[in-house]
Structure formats: structure tokens, C-alpha cells
């Protein structure tokens, strides 16, 4: 199934993940990669950190949540087109 998380697994194993554990002399902790869908949950969804006035003219949480809904809709549409039957 072509899903966000399936794609993110690929990304998670790529060079982008190197910084978490690799870099240097004193990495103190080993953290696991986060799937894209879980990041979206947290970075755009209910898990927002601060209200919007830092974001330049971005009307804060509401706008982002509206956009996320649009995004999810568009993802669903995309999935519907490309989805293969689940084995």
C-alpha cells in the first residue's frame, strides 16, 4: 500500500536520520525515527506547541489545522487513485 508511513519508512532509513545518533562524541541518547504520519499528528495536530503569533502572519493553530484537513483530504484523494488492493 502506498501510504505516507510507507514512504516515511524509506526516508527514516536515509541520511536524514543520521544526526540523531551519529554525529559526535557525546550522543547521550538513542532515539528512534518517527513516522511521518505521527509527526504530522504532533507538529500540526493537537500537539501544537504555541499559538500563532510567532508564525509570521500565519493565523496560528486554526489556519494550520484547516490546512491539515485539506491536506488529509488531498492525501485521501491521492491514495484512492494510487491505492492497490491490500494483500
Amino acid at each position, binding site marked *: 500500500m502506498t501510504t505516507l*508511513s510507507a514512504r516515511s519508512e524509506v*526516508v527514516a532509513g536515509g541520511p536524514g536520520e543520521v544526526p540523531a545518533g551519529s*554525529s559526535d562524541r*557525546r550522543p547521550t541518547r538513542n*532515539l*528512534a525515527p518517527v513516522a511521518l504520519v505521527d509527526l504530522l*499528528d504532533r507538529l500540526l495536530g493537537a500537539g501544537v506547541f504555541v499559538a500563532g503569533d510567532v*508564525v*509570521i502572519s500565519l493565523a496560528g493553530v486554526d489556519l494550520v489545522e484547516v490546512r491539515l484537513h485539506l491536506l488529509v483530504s488531498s492525501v485521501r484523494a491521492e491514495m484512492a487513485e494510487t491505492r492497490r488492493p491490500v494483500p
Partner: protein
Amino acid sequence: MSDMPPAPTSADGPEPSVPVSDTATNSATNPATDTVTDSSTGQGSEQGTGRYLYAVCRRLPPGALQGVHGLSGEPLELVEHGDLVAVVSTVPLASFGEDALRRNLEDLSWLESVVRGHDDVVQAVAAHGPVAPMRLATICFDDDAVRARLRQWAVDLGYVLDRVTGSAEWSVKLLELAPQAEALEEAEAPASGAEYLRRRKAAVEQRAASSASAADVADDIHATLACRAKASRQLPPQDPRLSGLSGTMVLNAAYLVPDVDAAEFTAALDELRGRYPSLLIDARGPWPPYSFAMLGQP
């Protein structure tokens, strides 16, 4: 908005340039960035640069972020206020200004690259100690504005950083696997009308019991895990097409677990899996404390 600095000024970082990494491939090619926006805000916010905030922490060992880049391959820089350190990089407002963000947030590949780039930095910071991750696309005009925010949030940020110190986020999702009743029902034709009705009744009852018990079991599992965590949060269930997980998601929760208790937490997960074999318990972690960094959270 009211206390925002009046105009974007040139930030301390380098001028925006053509992206050199693949973390933001769209900023060079997205048509949106080439569009001159109508500056209805009258601030010309689509020109110049801003400072993108990834995370706030207390201190970083020298070289801690070596080899890690910000969005568009820009170097990461630190903006300090008191004992707080904001990890930032320069972003072009042509991609991250108000109007551009409106468009770009709907562009899935752009969003994915920014989310991934953001997470890379947060992970790198988290590897060295407590971190308060910022929400996606938290952008200040310049370093003075970043410092002003650190000053404004100092107490709350201190509280957040204290709370997450020595702890990490674990994600636990419970998925109710598809019931087998219907498959059985279709596998053998009923011998009689009465047999058919009896099966229907049994199937309906089983489904009702199963969904009620799934909710009860989810509550039980959540309670079991929550008491082994410093804090917990429930998130909305994910659409299976986004999560790639099949079955009905009956719990999508995050737990802030002290590192020293992580083994006990995962042992509890194993025990729960044994106790509830009909549920898929999908646990991931440890992660940076994304769900536990909200300001003003009790």
C-alpha cells in the same frame, strides 16, 4: 500579531540561497515561490528572510549539531537568552511567508520535506538533552524577535524542559483486528432459515460486544501504561490510509516515560500483548517529547 517587530530585517545568517540539500527540494521549484504575492498585509512579508525555530533547549555541548543542517541546507545557529537556547536557521520568506505557507502547507511533498527537516533537527538536539520542540513553521523575523519570545516564554519553557528532562515520548496505538465472524458466516451457507437467523444474531451480538470490549480494553491498556508514565495524551485515531496500519484504531496515545523506566514500560507492553492477543499493540519510541512540549500544559 500586535507586538511583532515592524519589518523583516536582514537576519544574522547568510542570505537565502539556492537550496543545497534535498531537504527542501521544492523551495526552488515550487511555482508558489516564484509568485509575487499581493501584499495585502502591507508588510511585504514575502521578501527577505526569517528565522525558523526548531526547538528550545538549555545548553548544547560544543559541536553537538555538527553535520546537521537546517531547512534548505542552511546552517543551524543558536540564539540564547538566559539559560535558554533556541536552535534556528534562516529561511526565505518567499517559501515561509504567510502567503507562501498557505500554499506550501497544502503541497504534500513540500510539507513532508519540512516535517522531516524539522524532525532531524529536533532529534539531533534531543540526543543531547531535554528539548522543547517547536511547532512546524514557527518563524520569527529576526534574532531579536527570537530572544523576545524566549524572554516571554522563559517560565513556561523552563517548566517544559524540566518536565521532559530524562524522559522520552512513546507512542502506543491499539488496533482492533477485523473480526472473523463475517468470514465464517460467509464460508458456510446456513442449513436453514433458523440457522441463518441464529448466526446473524450471534454475529451482531459479537460485534457489539467486541466494540464495547475494545473500548474497555483500550481504557484498561491506557490506564496501565499511563501509570507507568510521567504524563500521557490521547491523540485522534489515525486514518488507516495515512498510518498504513490495518484494523480499527481504538487508541492513539503518547506517553512521557522516564528513560530509567523505559524497560519497565516495554515489559508492560509485552505483558499487555499477551493478555490481549486480539489487539495489535503498535508501540514506537523513544521519541523526542513532541506531545509534551506545549506551553501552559498542566
